[in-house]
């Protein structure tokens, strides 16, 4: 009787802000290393499903303030960069070392940050790969494009569940796209009149042109 085959979970890697040619090089290296890796791998566009994010930290502000263990920085001179673990361009032996330390099950599931309301956040810049983000995430980003807002305020304003808001903030933070400031207020300020001000106009234009509101 043959043993049932157990499908290993694949290690999902998101290439963050790496250039297209660097992503291609990473793909080729991973193919070369495939027989030495403990887990199958796949490059993913969706950050929220990634187990590992590789970032080019030579790019100013790439890492941001709130980093997570699963973010690996690479730089042309990693010895001179405190956030870099690997060389850029990527080298096979460093990649192998990093990937050997990570397993898919190690990755903590995103959780609601209990302290999220201690901080208010604003976008430093929008991500470039907008197609990788869903409607909820884009709505959250729109809400923190010009103003600092805390998680619960964002949840009320956008109608997106607070845990989704927190996941999105964590993702943006890992990519270095957020700036934060301590929350001074006890309760989020959301003016219902302000919320509805543009909704009917946006709905009307959406109805005419064919976008969802």
């Amino acid at each position: 009787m043959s043993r049932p085959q157990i499908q290993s979970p694949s290690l999902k890697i998101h290439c963050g802000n790496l250039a297209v040619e660097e992503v291609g090089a990473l793909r080729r290296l991973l193919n070369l290393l495939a027989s030495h890796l403990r887990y199958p791998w796949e490059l993913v566009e969706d950050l929220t499903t990634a187990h590992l994010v590789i970032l080019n930290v030579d790019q100013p502000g790439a890492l941001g303030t709130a980093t997570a263990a699963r973010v690996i920085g690479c730089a042309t001179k990693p010895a001179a960069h405190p956030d870099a673990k690997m060389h850029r361009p990527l080298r096979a032996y460093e990649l192998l070392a990093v990937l050997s330390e990570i397993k898919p099950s190690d990755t903590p599931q995103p959780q609601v940050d209990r302290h999220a309301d201690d901080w208010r956040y604003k976008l430093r810049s929008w991500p470039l790969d907008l197609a990788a983000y869903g409607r909820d995430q884009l709505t959250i980003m729109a809400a923190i494009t010009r103003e600092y807002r805390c998680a619960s305020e964002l949840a009320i304003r956008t109608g997106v569940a607070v845990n989704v808001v927190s996941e999105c903030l964590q993702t943006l933070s890992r990519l270095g796209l957020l700036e934060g400031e301590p929350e001074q207020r006890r309760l989020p300020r959301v003016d219902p009149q302000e919320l509805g001000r543009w909704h009917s106009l946006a709905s009307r234009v959406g109805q005419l042109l064919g976008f969802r509101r």
Partner: protein
Amino acid sequence: MSATWKLLFIGEPGAGKTTCIAAVSDIEPVSTDVGCTDELAQIKETTTVALDYGELDLGRDGRLLLYGLPGQSRFRFMFDVVKEGLLGVAVLVDATRADPLRGLRETLATYADEFRELPCVLCLNKQEVPARGLLESCQRLLGEFGLVAPVLVIDARRRSDVVRIFDMLFLLLEQSSVRIDRQEMVAWH
């Protein structure tokens, strides 16, 4: 009385302003195109010398006026003409130009103060898959001028892509605390 709101498409000649407005306007867009006589003739036959104009009838919600303005600093005075009731700005860039950032830099240097107060998107036109480096350079340039805005890759000839610009601008408008004075005008019809 009918409320009128405005959206602005701005960018260097050939960036796609006229095409964007024509894609969604209810009326035949009013254009001030003339034949090119300078080096621009190598890129396109005509160019807009003043502004483009189109509009969307919003029924009881009034009208949405669509303006296309050149991004060069010498046309700065035209912005003052359209700024009242302006809901948002789409900055257009022809991604196929030899130096697409030159015109963008001039536009941002001229209007960054105004753009910071409004929903704003940057649209890279005419190239389906622009180099990542160009996207990054645009993002950096926005940052240099203190602007935070999404960068959309569009083909202005596709109506669906132009609709994406509207979608994003209205998403930004709904989610921001921007205060825009409502402009009341006697309806033309």
